[in-house]
């Protein structure tokens, strides 16, 4: 039984890392949104499994929030936004997909080395979860760096937050306050970003961050 519990937890957390890689190579807007939905579904499964294993019913709430908000509502809203703005074209990436994937592999290796060494004393369920979570966080960061489009940066940021939730639920008995605040902060962050997107649209007729850069500080 113990072995089985561990295996399922690893499979789900590892699945999250895999979907993070899928996010990295999506070059169409709708594909990216769908991949993000999948990311959120895997996260909510993983959280639900933790809730079952730890016997912590409040984690089911976190799983439900992740499923409803991040797998359904936010992708749908972004989908509508993308259609409305007419930006469902190819996403350009910085540095090419192959290089990005290689960097991603390096980051995953790095997080394994760091976390497994640092948490030698912790229980195995938590420590490998934490290593996967760090990998997801770093891949989210990588995605934010390599994308120019504002919508893809938002997706990168939300996948990063998914990694944080994985870490928070893996830490057994972590107070609920923090989990809800994480879910809440994502919501707030989304509203903020949404407002920004509309304002950006209002002013620039584009959500390409490159266009924003042209107005960069230091005017003469």
């Amino acid at each position: 039984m113990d072995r089985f519990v561990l295996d399922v937890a690893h499979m789900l957390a590892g699945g999250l890392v895999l979907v993070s890689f899928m996010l990295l190579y999506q070059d169409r807007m709708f594909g990216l949104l769908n991949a993000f939905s999948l990311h959120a579904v895997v996260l909510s499964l993983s959280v639900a499994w933790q809730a079952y294993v730890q016997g912590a019913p409040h984690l089911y709430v976190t799983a439900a929030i992740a499923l409803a908000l991040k797998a359904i509502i936010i992708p749908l809203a972004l989908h509508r936004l993308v259609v409305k703005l007419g930006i469902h074209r190819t996403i350009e990436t910085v540095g090419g997909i192959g290089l990005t994937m290689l960097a991603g592999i390096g980051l995953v290796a790095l997080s394994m080395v760091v976390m497994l060494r640092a948490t030698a004393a912790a229980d195995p369920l938590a420590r490998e979860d934490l290593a996967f979570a760090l990998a997801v966080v770093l891949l989210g960061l990588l995605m934010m760096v390599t994308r120019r489009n504002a919508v893809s940066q938002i997706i990168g940021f939300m996948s990063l937050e998914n990694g944080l939730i994985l870490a928070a639920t893996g830490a057994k008995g972590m107070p609920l306050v923090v989990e809800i605040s994480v879910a809440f902060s994502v919501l707030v962050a989304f509203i903020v970003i949404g407002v920004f997107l509309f304002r950006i649209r209002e002013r620039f007729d584009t959500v390409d961050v490159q266009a924003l850069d042209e107005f960069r500080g230091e005017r003469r």
Partner: protein
Amino acid sequence: MSLELLRNLPFDNVTAVLVIPGVAALLLAALPGYRLTAFLNVAATLATLVAALTLLLVRPEPGPYLIVDDLNIVFVVLGTFVGFTTSAFSASYIGHEIEIGRLTPANLRFYHAMYQALMFAMNLALLANNIGLMWVAIELATLTTVLMVGIYRTHEALEAAWKYFILGSVGIALALFGTILVYMAARPVIGEGQDAMVWTALIARAKEFDARLLTVAFIFLMLGYGTKVGLAPVHAWLPDAHAEGPTPISAVLSGLLLNVALYALLRFKMLLAANPDAIAPGPLMATLGLVSLLFASFMLYRRRDIKRMFAYSSIEHMGIIVFAFGMGGPLANFAGLLHMTMHSLTKSAIFFTVGHIAQAKGTQKIAEIRGLTESHPVLGWSLVVGVAAIAGFPPLGIFMSEFLVVTSTFAREPLLAVLLVMGLLVAAGALVLRVTDMAFGEPTGKMGLVEASYLPIFAHLALVLASGIYLPGPLVAWFQNVARLLG
């Protein structure tokens, strides 16, 4: 007798420090009209300041969520004071912005509500006894300032807000990961649940925590909260956010928000220092601080925008402060605390002055501002005095704190002191160069008149001057006590 009265209040003063700005935020979001809301904004910050001052007299017992101790009370009193003077400056600043139509009444309602929400978030972050709650409060403070930076909706303001939002959120996310790791380290020792995130419980038993986990946690916390402090590799949001938002927000960012993030960093530094096997946090902080100082001091030479220049000066001074705390020991910690206080007061006074100057001249470009001491004598000379203070000239307060930082470094690491002094001189040179251009010579450009509020500027500069000449004994004893606490 008055103490008795305070003790018998139906709610304690800690709650008041949080409730007043919270209620004011809701009220100001609902009320129309510029004069009334600006007045209410000032009144609310004054009430918060009074409540914070009573914390000096009556200190409630630490609970599971809130705590008042020797360390955070310095930050709370300083923060509420600068919050109050900034709201007074903001009242006249906003009046002018409405006249020229840069802000609409709807914007204004939003602005005032956000100002109070920011005060609430910062006080909560400082008073929190729970590292999760502290994180939530700092996140809230970030979101409110992002919204205020973007309030003018110009190209530049939007870009600044977007950059600040992205960098700030990434920083905050890394800090959360660090917070989770601290909980993981504490859990085997303290046990599951609420207690393993309570600050007082953490510091009491930090010796028994897993050192390696704590080390990794600190790296994340330092990068995360360090982004909000504005340390060199992750500072990019700071100049834009300062330059493009309303000037009262620049003053609050430099005078308060950077300090709040610094406070979070100091708390975790104490935690690490209490565990003998974990990495020593001092050298890491000292390195980052020194790099920020050197980087910012050279960057000061190429600035063309007046607010952006002083934003770089904030990075420089946060570098000095983090360096001082990184060196550690009673003397360097004392110097760091003093420098932080002096920097908050001076830099917000400079931003008050710069705000009015930019309004009078209708521009923020340094090249178009000339001969201020002739065209606007009070503002011009205030700027000169403010810059003399921030550049570290005697007899003003910053000279003394910088002197303490340098001497305490010389006694222990002479080589680092050489770098430190070089950074200070380079920065002072840049500031003096730019300000002589702006303050003296033939006045050019627009000669607009503004209804400036000089009182906040004078109050801050007078405090800085007075503390440069004479520091009262009780204050010194208080700071020494906190410096010892910081280890």
